[in-house]
């Protein structure tokens, strides 16, 4: 029986338990002076929980643990000289044994006999059944494969029987104790509370997952490439693993990528910060209510446009335009390439305008009205009020907002993939192409992957660098913004 059938059976038992328990609870006759503690529905839900939850937990644990146990048992059943052979590749051998074990199911009795007596060519036989073996089967693998298959069958049989028994026992317990005083509601609510707690830990688990997954691959990467070569290397030339480079693994220098990332983010901020900040100031200080209600949503549309659209806008429209304009100005030779720091930075800046403006708008409106009115009352003009009173008061908050925006610019992917170019240059000329960390992550991970080559693993090292970089900025920004808010609350 497969897992889904067992699950279905458990759920059916649970549903039956729910309805029976609810009817029974509804039929209870409270005597004078007695009160029923819980509503019938809670009795039903309690029976449902008892019938399903333990069985599902049992099934989950079994499914997670049994492959480990079976793997160990099959491994121990192999002959000693095979296990200690110097060219032993454990995962490959075990993979072949598992494949044979699964393949045995598809053979008829005659073929099975042939396989057992060691006469059949395993690879050809399985290929005829539509199963590809990774390596040639050896004679010692046959009994191991059969043992594996036997244990696997037994495991799924026992787990099914166990789960259904547990489910029935739970249902029995849920149904047997239905009395007026049973505190079904409290029990159900306790389970619900635990479910809520479990849901709230998903966020923590995600962070742990991000850190751990990247950490392991990064450590694997640093086993082949020294730490200093990565962090201080100025040449990015990973080569391709398939090119038969004969041990030469290429160079993985972070510096050109980091420089490109920061340069493009800097250009983007250079454009977005004044525009966004002035837009926010105008909106909070000068704009009429009507203008606000029109302009604010229109600017926020910019934030809702997917970054791939910005990327294509840069690639198809802005890049060629800048190139042609610069060529016309300089007379022939374009100063700005179609894919360049300037193109990517400008378009990313457009994307960031609404972030800067709505974040600064929040910050500016958090400045107490009394400061603003006091300044106007002393005779300052509105611009003087903004410059001399509001902005200084809002400065920490705005710095936090800018940090958040910068972290977004650094982590942005699609715009730079399409508009910044792929050449890892180290240059100061904004008219030339540079590349970023995110572009290289995408480049290294699209196409065929091999989780052992440094060419693939470097993406995770880049990823963790990016993660740490943005995490630091975010934590600082959130801290500053929080402190700032507390100051005026």
């Amino acid at each position: 029986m497969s897992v889904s059938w067992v699950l279905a059976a458990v759920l059916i038992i649970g549903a039956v338990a729910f309805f029976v328990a609810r009817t029974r609870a509804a039929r209870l006759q409270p005597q004078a002076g007695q009160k029923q503690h819980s509503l019938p529905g809670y009795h039903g839900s309690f029976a449902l929980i008892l019938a399903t939850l333990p069985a599902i937990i049992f099934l989950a644990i079994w499914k997670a643990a049994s492959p480990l146990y079976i793997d160990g048992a099959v491994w121990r059943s192999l002959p000693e000289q095979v296990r200690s052979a110097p060219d032993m590749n454990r995962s490959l051998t075990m993979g072949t044994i598992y494949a044979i074990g699964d393949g045995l199911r598809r053979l008829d009795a005659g073929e099975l006999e042939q396989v057992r007596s060691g006469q059949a060519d395993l690879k050809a036989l399985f290929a005829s059944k539509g199963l590809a073996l990774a390596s040639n089967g050896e004679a010692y693998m046959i009994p191991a494969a059969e043992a594996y298959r036997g244990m696997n069958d037994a495991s799924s049989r026992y787990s099914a029987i166990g789960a259904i028994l547990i489910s029935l026992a739970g249902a029995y317990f849920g149904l047997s104790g239905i009395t007026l005083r049973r505190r079904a509601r409290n029990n159900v609510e306790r389970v619900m509370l635990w479910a809520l707690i479990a849901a709230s830990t998903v966020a923590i688990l995600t962070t742990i997952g991000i850190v751990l997954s990247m950490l392991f691959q990064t450590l694997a990467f640093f086993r082949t490439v020294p730490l200093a070569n990565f962090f201080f290397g100025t040449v990015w030339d990973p080569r391709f693993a398939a090119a038969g480079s004969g041990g030469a693994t290429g160079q993985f220098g972070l510096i050109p990528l980091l420089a490109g990332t920061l340069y493009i983010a800097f250009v983007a901020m250079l454009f977005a910060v004044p525009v966004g900040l002035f837009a926010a100031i105008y909106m909070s200080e000068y704009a009429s209510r009507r203008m606000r209600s029109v302009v604010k949503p229109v600017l926020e549309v910019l934030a809702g446009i997917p970054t791939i659209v910005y990327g294509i806008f840069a690639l198809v429209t802005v890049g060629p335009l800048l190139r042609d304009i610069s060529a016309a100005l300089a007379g022939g030779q374009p100063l700005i390439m179609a894919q360049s720091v300037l193109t990517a930075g400008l378009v990313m800046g457009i994307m960031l305008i609404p972030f800067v403006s709505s974040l600064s708008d929040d910050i500016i409106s958090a400045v107490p009205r009394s400061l603003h009115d006091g300044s106007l009352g002393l005779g300052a003009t509105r611009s003087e009020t903004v410059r001399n009173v509001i902005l200084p008061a809002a400065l920490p908050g705005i710095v936090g907002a800018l940090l958040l925006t910068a972290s977004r610019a650094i982590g942005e992917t699609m715009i730079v993939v399409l508009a910044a170019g792929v050449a890892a240059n180290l240059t100061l000329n904004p008219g030339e192409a540079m590349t970023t960390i995110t572009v290289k992550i995408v480049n290294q991970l699209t196409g065929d992957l091999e989780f052992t080559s440094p060419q693939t693993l470097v993406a995770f090292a880049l990823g963790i660098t990016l993660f740490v970089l943005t995490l630091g900025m975010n934590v600082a920004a959130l801290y500053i913004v929080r402190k700032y808010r507390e100051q005026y609350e």
Partner: protein
Amino acid sequence: MTDIPFDQAAAGGSAAPTRRDIGIKRRYRAERRFRLYGLVAIGIGIFFLAALLFTVIRGGYTAFWQTSINLPITFDAAVIDPQGKRDSDPNVLAAANYPLLARDALAAKLGIDVKAPSSREDLRLLSGMISQGARTQLRAMVTDDPSIIGTTRDVWVLAAADIDSAHKGQIDLSVPEARRKVKDRQVEWIKQLGADGTMVERFNRGLFTFGASSRPETAGMGVALIGSLYMMLIVLVLALPIGVAASIYLEEFAPKNRWTDLIEVNINNLAAVPSIVFGLLGLAVFVNFAGLPRSASLVGGLVLTLMTLPTIIIATRAALKAVPPSIRSGALGIGASKMQTVFHHVLPLAAPGILTGTIIGLAQALGETAPLLLIGMVAFVADYPATPMDPATALPVQIYMWANEAERAFVERTSGAIIILLLFLAAMNLAAILLRRRFERRW
């Protein structure tokens, strides 16, 4: 004090009035300048939005029309089945030379003699005018109903991509003939066919139904639409309950301690983690560790779920916070338990806010590209995915893939796909706004 001109000016009429006026003028000028900067900033923002939308729509609206040719095609048994073996060998019908049928019909229409040796070059050019998709189209007609062999039917076949571009006037005819793909003779034919109503632009249904194809005229977003639909469903089914449950715990039950503080900081941080990092997580955990298939919409959906979760949690918490405490006190006062208070009273009142946040989170997830590139959704998938475990692509990834193609017709399709994506996003955001307007309560 009197040595500062400003104070003198502010002190009133005792100082020379001319000096005071100079100061005011200067300050008012600065004021106007400042105001102008603000207007210019807003103008820049609106200008770029308009420019972006304008270029996308101008480049893409033509993608919704596709040039087709209406041909009276004779299903000639001598072409389909020259040896007369179709009853015994089913492969005959599958492997027959269907494009020849369409070419001959087109030649007949234009009055070109198929048999004449002088028209060989013309015939080659004619073949180039009809999409390779005609093969599948005609084959499907014949295998569905073999009795049409020997009859003549009016069939709309797609024009080849270059002919389509030429018919739409997108190809520069001033370029010397040798350097362009559409030859002068073909241009003549296009004019001729267009004049007698045989070649017309029809609504491009294939854009929504076809899968991946290396030929623009038979490339569509069918697979991408289904892939995106699967992923949105997965995000909705997973992120909404988990997000709401987490917010309820944090907002209504959690004690204020280090642990809940940690969770809070965590969620705020996750909302700002670059999306590509989630792609790395998906690749390492779901594909490499858990062994789920690459390119599957299931993996994409899981990654997008983790990405959307913080958005939904933040929106839900705001919605829960907006429910006034009197509702809770009232429910508790008449004897509801804490859990009943939350689920029977607070949650229904917060539902519009939660839904709005969810729709906005979904819209974000729909437009996300980078993490999907990493889990291998940049794949050439021609067949519809039957389940979320099958390889698929997504709308934004399809746009990315078409953007890397060079042909003119793909450029047009890229913009067309962007229009569709933007329409979806606009519809979702509009729904969110309407929901908020309709159900939002102010206490």
